[in-house]
């Protein structure tokens, strides 16, 4: 099976391990990832805060290239890229005049033939096959963190229940993990403020990491490079924002990409999955604790 692929900038830079683990998982599943030839920047936040047409033209060019390459579907792992590509497609399909403007700008034809998938949608299609490839079930309690872009806005959402999504939970469950029910799965991590207002990101992300730990998660699972950066790379800032007594508890919880979890369960070793690249080291015991640590005291869990 062959499917289109759009890595975007972060997967070639700060989130190389996401790309590496995607390639490993695709190889095990026998899926060929066909990279869109000559793809360009999705524009991300920078373009759409400045110029609406530029924000549409950038993804439109990539989508037009995918269409030219005869790709019916493109997997877009980065949530921000996904939001821009899927959003552009949605907007142009619903506004004939705008589509004309944008195709004039990019000087290419575009018909909307190529659909855009994120990693959750893509892997959930083959979720039934996953258990067959599992050689080392990922027997840990995990907190699936969706963040904002996978669930918003509703018209583009890759998830059915936008405020309480379950798609990532379904995936990790299929490879032997135990997803917990927690309170912060779609709360904001601070996103792009990571650079300009790191302390805001630390404050928001601290709540996310703390809640996951309090409810007994051994790892946080994400599907977005931005989320990963804020929860993993900004861990020192998060610790600084945490109440003094709570720092040691939340210092060690690792943040894994969903494809790393799936890859580990498939028996791929740490290095090809890029697990050595994380800021918070991934040290998960082979045998999970038999009794789940007490969650925050609610009888309902």
């Amino acid at each position, binding site marked *: 099976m062959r499917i289109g692929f759009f890595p975007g900038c972060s997967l070639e830079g700060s989130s190389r391990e996401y790309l590496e683990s995607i390639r490993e998982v695709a190889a095990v599943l026998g899926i060929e990832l066909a990279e869109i030839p000559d793809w360009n920047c999705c524009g991300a936040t920078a373009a759409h805060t400045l110029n609406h047409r530029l924000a549409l033209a950038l993804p439109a060019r990539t989508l037009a290239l995918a269409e030219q390459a005869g790709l019916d579907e493109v997997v877009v792992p980065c949530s921000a890229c996904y939001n821009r590509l899927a959003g552009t497609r949605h907007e142009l399909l619903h506004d004939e005049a705008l589509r004309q403007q944008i195709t004039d700008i990019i000087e290419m034809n575009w018909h909307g033939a190529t659909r855009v998938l994120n990693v959750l949608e893509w892997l959930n299609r083959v979720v039934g096959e996953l258990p067959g490839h599992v050689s080392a079930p990922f027997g840990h309690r995990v907190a699936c963190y969706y963040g904002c872009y996978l669930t918003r806005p509703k018209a583009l959402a890759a998830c059915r229940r936008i405020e*309480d999504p379950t798609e990532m939970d379904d995936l990790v469950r299929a490879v032997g993990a135990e997803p917990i029910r927690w309170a912060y799965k779609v709360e904001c991590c601070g996103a792009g403020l990571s650079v300009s207002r790191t302390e805001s990101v630390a404050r928001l992300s601290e709540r996310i990491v703390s809640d996951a730990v309090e409810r007994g998660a051994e790892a946080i699972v994400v599907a977005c490079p931005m989320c990963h950066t804020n929860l993993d790379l900004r861990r020192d800032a998060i610790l600084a924002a945490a109440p003094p007594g709570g720092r040691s508890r939340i210092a060690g919880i690792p943040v894994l990409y969903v494809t790393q979890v799936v890859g580990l369960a498939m028996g791929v070793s740490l290095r090809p999955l890029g697990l050595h690249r994380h800021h918070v080291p991934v040290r998960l015991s082979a045998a999970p604790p038999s009794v789940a640590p007490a969650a925050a005291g609610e009888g309902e869990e």
Partner: protein
Amino acid sequence: MPRIGVFICHCGENIGATVDCEVVAQAAGRLPGVAHAVDYKYMCSDPGQSLIKEAIREKRLTGVVVGACSPRMHEPTFRRACAEAGLNPFLCEMANLREHCSWVHEKGEVTTQKAIDLVRMLVEKVKRNRPLTPIRVPITKRALVLGGGIAGIQAALDIANAGHKVVLVERDPSIGGHMAQLSETFPTLDCSQCILTPRMVEVAQHPDITLYTYSELESLDGFIGNFRATIRKKARSVDESLCTGCGACIQKCAQKKIPSEFNAGLGRRTAIYVPFPQAVPNKPVIDRARCTYYKSGRCKLCEKVCPTKAIRFDQEDELVTIDVGAVVVATGYDVKATSFFPEYGYGEYKDVITGLQFERLASASGPTLGEIRRPSDNEVPKKIVFIACAGSRDPAKGIHYCSKICCMYTAKHAMLYSHKVHDGEAYVFYMDIRAGGKMYEEFVRRAVEEDHVRYVRGRVSRIYPKNGKLIVKGVDTLLNSRPVEVEADLVVLATAMTAQPDAEDLAQKLKVSYDGDKFLNEAHPKLRPVEMNTAGIFVAGACQAPKDIPETVAQASGAASKVAGMFSRDELSREPVVAVVNRQPPPVWSTCVGCFLCETACAYQAIEREEIRGRDGGLIRTIAKVNESVCQGCGTCVALCRSKSIDLQGYTNEQVYAELLAL
């Protein structure tokens, strides 16, 4: 030779200011077959009608065209005038010069020309009109009421008190419906049971009401005045004539932990049970899906203890057929739609409950005997959060409509809570407060001002448990839109009011229409609010749209008075605009070939089969026949008939083509 009279109305300035009525009348007078043409300022007034009557007599008119407003407005008026002058009323037609011409066009020659065209069309049509007589239909003076909630109870009592027989069918073991589950009712806080249960007893004791509980409508055939209903009496497994309602069987039943439907899942019941102590009839049924005997073949404890030997394990469903003249549909609503907001955790967290469950907690007959105690640990909640619009008015995730009752019952809940838990804090998250109704706004203000309920205008984004509390995260949109977090002990969701899950099946059984949300459609939203588009079927209560008790009772009484009005006559008269299958002299008999495509097309089951037999009794042919009592005159069969054997009286193909050719 036809002698047609044309009467052009100015309708004051409505037509006269835009159309040159005098020119229209003159042009009409020149049309072939027109013997008389005149214009007048108000044709519907007494002098106007006299113009028509005099002309009919003096000019011996064979047909009349009135160029005026819409026939929906005044066709009956002008037809009555014609009849008074001795002309068959169906020889009078209206050209709509107001809605179809003057109101939608500018003043000018073209507009006048269009008016002339419209008149010319109707003149050509009326030349081909034939005298018709209204259809008479006999009436069975017995009403069927579906649903034994407050709507059905009210309708049944009103019809029976008007002196007519009523059959009331309820699918649960007792009548009473949702109202029996409520604690107090807004805006007076009188106890729901205290005002309802006497009505329930009245129904049971009324000599003219036959009550079928634990029964459902199986099918309905026939037409207005002449329906035939088949009712399935589900097996109670108890002989009602022997049972005294002593309750010994209930005490002995081995299954004691079945969630009670009446207590909205908060209490428990046995497998042989009456839903609540004040049930009517106060006779138990066996829930066969839960009963030990039906599951394992052993037990029969109830049979052993029954002093009158009333238990019947081998009882079977029984089908009863009843002839009725009218049907009142009062099948109510459902409130189980909790899935719209998974992030509120209903079903996951025991202390997130629905409004109906709160009613049971607050009710003196409820599982806590009226004390507000939360389900998880039976503690009295000190902080309670009510979430209004938990699904309503939310096209993105829930339903688009307003459930109408939630603003009021949420205010009532908060009020009852503060009356019962004096040191408690009550919060209400809301979008808008809709308190239209007599003393309704005052009631909500009372909750805020006297009972100090904290109203927060904003939505709740999430509920999650922490340290034994439920953290309710929301926003206060009135105070600089700041986020709000409340540590609650109990959360009550005002879940949306939805149609009964099988409302669609019922509508199809009754052949009545329903909307996109599966609520049943009234015939006209303003002017025919209790009738349905199928003649003889009426609607009352929340099966038509969300509504509260006063409105439900008003609609039920309205439906009952429509039924009583219909039953006050011995036969019905209706317009003869129906389809007819042509009949020819032998040897052709009819051009109908008996393909019965019309039967498939008819939405009202009006097509019957007629056998044509020779003198020797041998079958010559089976052809279609239209039951004129049932036919609604829609004309679908006419369009579909391949041999052109069906025509619509008053709108025959010949008439319609003549109109078009006149253009």
